C-alpha cells in the first residue's frame, strides 16, 4: 500500500472547510504531540482516509466519502489551530 501524508488530504478537507486545513496544527489526543496536519501519516485509499499521529500512530482524523455525504471523525485531535492569514 502506498503510504502518503496529510498533504494529500488537502483536497478532501477543502470540500468541507473554507480554509486549508493541512497547514493547521493538530494536538494529538493520544500523546499530546502537536504538528501540522500535513505531517499526519495517511492510510487510504478512497472512500476512507485514516490519518495517524506521526509520533504515537493513534488515529487523529478520518474522512469517509459516502455517495451523498462526508463523515469527518476528529476524535483523535484535542484541537486544531488554524492560521488565518497566509503564513
Amino acid at each position: 500500500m502506498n503510504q502518503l501524508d496529510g498533504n494529500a488530504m488537502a483536497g478532501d478537507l477543502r470540500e468541507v472547510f473554507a480554509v486549508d486545513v493541512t497547514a493547521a496544527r493538530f494536538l494529538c489526543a493520544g500523546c499530546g504531540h502537536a504538528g501540522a496536519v500535513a505531517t499526519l501519516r495517511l492510510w487510504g485509499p478512497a472512500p476512507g482516509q485514516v490519518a495517524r499521529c506521526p509520533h504515537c500512530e493513534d488515529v487523529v482524523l478520518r474522512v469517509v466519502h459516502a455517495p451523498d455525504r462526508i463523515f469527518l471523525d476528529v476524535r483523535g485531535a484535542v484541537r486544531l489551530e488554524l492560521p488565518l492569514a497566509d503564513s
Partner: protein
Amino acid sequence: MARAAVSGRLIWRVATVAGARWETPSARTLVLDLPDWPGHLPGQHVDVRLTAEDGYRAQRSYSIASAWSDDGDPVELTVQRLDDGEVSPYLTDGLAVGDQLELRGPVGGWFVWRDTRPAPVLLVAGGSGVVPLMAMIRARAAAHARQPFRLIYSVRTPADACYGEELRRRVRDDGGLDVQFVYTRKTPEGWPAPPKRIDVATLNTYGWPPDFAPDCYVCGPTTFVEAAADILVALGHDPGRIRTERFGGTS
C-alpha cells in the same frame, strides 16, 4: 507573484491538455489549459479524477511543476508512471493533446514556499519528488528572488533525472542556485563516487549549515523522506523548518 487562492470553495474543473513532453522515459509533463485558474503557490498540488464508463472513479494528487505568474502561464504537471498504477499510466501514455481531464485545486497550504520568506532554502528530492521543488525553483526565478537555493536530487540513474537540461541552464543563469545529484543505482561516466543513497555526508556537504537556519523542503517516497528528514534533524536543523511531503510509489 500572483496571490494564490488558499481559501475559498473548491470546485472540480475541466482542463484541456494543450501540450505534453517526456522528461524521462517514464515521466511526462502535461501542459494544461485551465480557464479561470486562480493561480497557485509553488509546492501546491491538484487532485485529478478519472471516471470509467461504469462510473468507477479513481482520484490521485499530483504536484504542480510550473510557477504561476500574472501572465497566465499554463499549469504543468509532471507525472511519473507507476507500472501497477491505476491513474498514472493513463496520464503518461493514454492522454493525448486536446483531451480533457477533471481536476480540482490548487490545494495544500503547508508544503509551499513563499518568496516573502527570507531564509535560504534547501530542497531535497527523491525521484519524482522533485516536481513541487522544481516549481519552487521556477517561482524563485520568476519573482527574481534572491534567497539562495540548493537542490539535492536523488535519482536511480542519470536517465531518470527530470528537468536535467533546464536545471543545468538555471544553475548557470539563476544566480544563487546550486544543484547536486545523488545516484542510487548507476552514476554517469567519471562520477567521483559509487552509487549510494542519500546520507549524512551528502546533506552535510551539499546542504546549508544549520546555523544558516534554512527552510528545508523534502519530497519523495516515504522511506526517502524519513531518512532525509532524520538526517537533517541529526545535523542540527530545526524540525520546525523542515517540511515534508511523501508520496506513494517506489524509491
